[in-house]
């Protein structure tokens, strides 16, 4: 009986741990924004994020206290949506109408009022408010995740996007039309070999690079979307995998690695291989 009870307690403990892990993974997924409608991801308009960064951050912080104007964290809970719409569109008219909240803010912030953003449509303002409501600037685009965190599925998705087996959402052509990585038989040779790209540029620079097309992509509209953040992350993950496998001297698995290989590919072994090559280049110690 005692054994049975202790086993039950142990199971309950495991269950609690599992729930905690699920909750934690849910939270970590929420912190990355995906723009291709993926599940378990916070959604916001990239345009709203851009407007927020361009127009709001000069005077407001998000969760870091007062700057010139009030902290915007929780503003959508503190104020009603209608009031926010009116105030953002034309704070001067709301203050003139002797609205008590607007007047109080005006007095509190040294009689400096917010510019009238009359050029923003109601939809744009609503999108900005949605952006703030879901977590605002705390949310990072999915492609900013470090490729170390990629799952085997992400890497496989990246391989399929790279080789054209899966199509890019916005019609970008597969990387293998012009590029190859070591061990990939169907890669092109117009552009450079991308095997070492991940180690050469590292995660952050590669993220920035993948946000822009390699060549003049759309002549008529420079703001046309290129890759979704999820696609960008998957391609980055595949390139990282190619670099790691190449450094570890295991290029053949780039063609179609199985998930076990992906999981067990030792990054330390790759780094060791790189450092041993560097040592070999330096020559014998004097």
């Amino acid at each position, binding site marked *: 009986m005692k054994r049975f009870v202790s086993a039950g307690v142990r199971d309950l403990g495991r269950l609690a741990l599992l729930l905690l892990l699920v909750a934690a993974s849910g939270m970590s997924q929420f912190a990355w924004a995906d723009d291709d409608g993926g599940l378990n991801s916070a959604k916001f308009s990239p345009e709203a994020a851009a407007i927020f960064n361009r127009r709001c951050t000069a005077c407001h912080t998000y969760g870091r206290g007062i700057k010139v104007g009030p902290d915007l964290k929780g503003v959508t809970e503190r104020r009603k949506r209608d009031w926010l719409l009116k105030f953002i569109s034309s704070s001067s008219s709301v203050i003139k109408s002797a609205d008590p909240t607007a007047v109080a803010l005006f007095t509190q912030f040294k009689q400096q009022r917010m510019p009238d953003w009359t050029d923003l449509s109601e939809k744009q303002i609503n999108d900005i408010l949605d952006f703030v409501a879901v977590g605002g600037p705390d949310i990072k685009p999915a492609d900013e995740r470090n490729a170390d965190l990629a799952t085997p599925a992400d890497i496989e998705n990246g391989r399929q996007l790279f080789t054209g087996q899966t199509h890019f959402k916005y019609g970008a052509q597969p990387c293998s*039309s012009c590029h190859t990585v070591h061990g990939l038989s169907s890669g092109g040779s117009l552009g450079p070999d991308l095997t070492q790209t991940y180690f050469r540029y590292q995660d952050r620079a590669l993220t920035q690079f993948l946000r822009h097309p390699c*060549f003049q992509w759309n002549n008529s509209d420079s703001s046309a979307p290129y890759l979704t953040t999820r696609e960008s992350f998957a391609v980055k993950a595949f390139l990282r995998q190619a670099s790691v496998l190449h450094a570890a001297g295991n290029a053949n698995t780039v063609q179609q690695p199985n998930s076990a290989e992906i999981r067990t590919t030792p990054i330390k072994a790759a780094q060791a291989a790189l450092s041993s090559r560097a040592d070999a280049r330096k020559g014998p110690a004097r």
Partner: protein
Amino acid sequence: MKTSFLFAAWPYIALSLFLAGILVRYLLDRRRIATVTAELSEVRELFSAGRLWLLLLLIGHAIDLLFPRVIFWWNSSPTRLYLLEGAGFAIGAAALAGWLRLMWRHLDRSNRSAITEISDTVFLSLLLIGILSGLLMAVLYRWSSSWGAMIIAPYVASLVRGNPAAGFALQMPFLVRLHIFASFSALAVLPLTRLASFAVVALDRSFALIGRPVSVTAHGAEAWFRKHNPASWLWPEED
């Protein structure tokens, strides 16, 4: 000369030279169109070597540039990609062999006009540059059907729209730029070659076809005006 000129202005200059050249050839030859038609068989015989392969190359390029989405779809399978690239290279190699036979025949017989002789030689040389650069591109820069549809097709589309995006061509390797330049140059030289006879005869027949209904209408209008001549109402005594 700026490189951008070669890819922004030269295509239009080449096309203008081609159209103007054909028109001038037509105006010069229309009085002796029967002779030109008689000469066609000789020209046909001269250019018969490798004609099929050159035509296939031309059609392949046209599909790649006009229907890039078809190419993207086709190339999405590695097997089909290898098949297309292999076939393209084989046709290119056959076209090169055809060119050699064509050049042999060209050197073998002399022509009455020095200008035509020189023009034919220049045209054939440009053709050789085009074929050789194309073959080298296929070897050195793999999957030219894919990147051609991706980069060169938008460039050609921009030329058609009248807003040339020379940047597409300028960022390509030298061989690709040479291939494009040689193609437009061949087009510019074409009216001076013996091949222009085909265009002259085609133009003459087109004008004859278009002219027939115009001539019928003009005759009808003339008869109507004679019948309803307002002068007969004004000066009836003169009838």
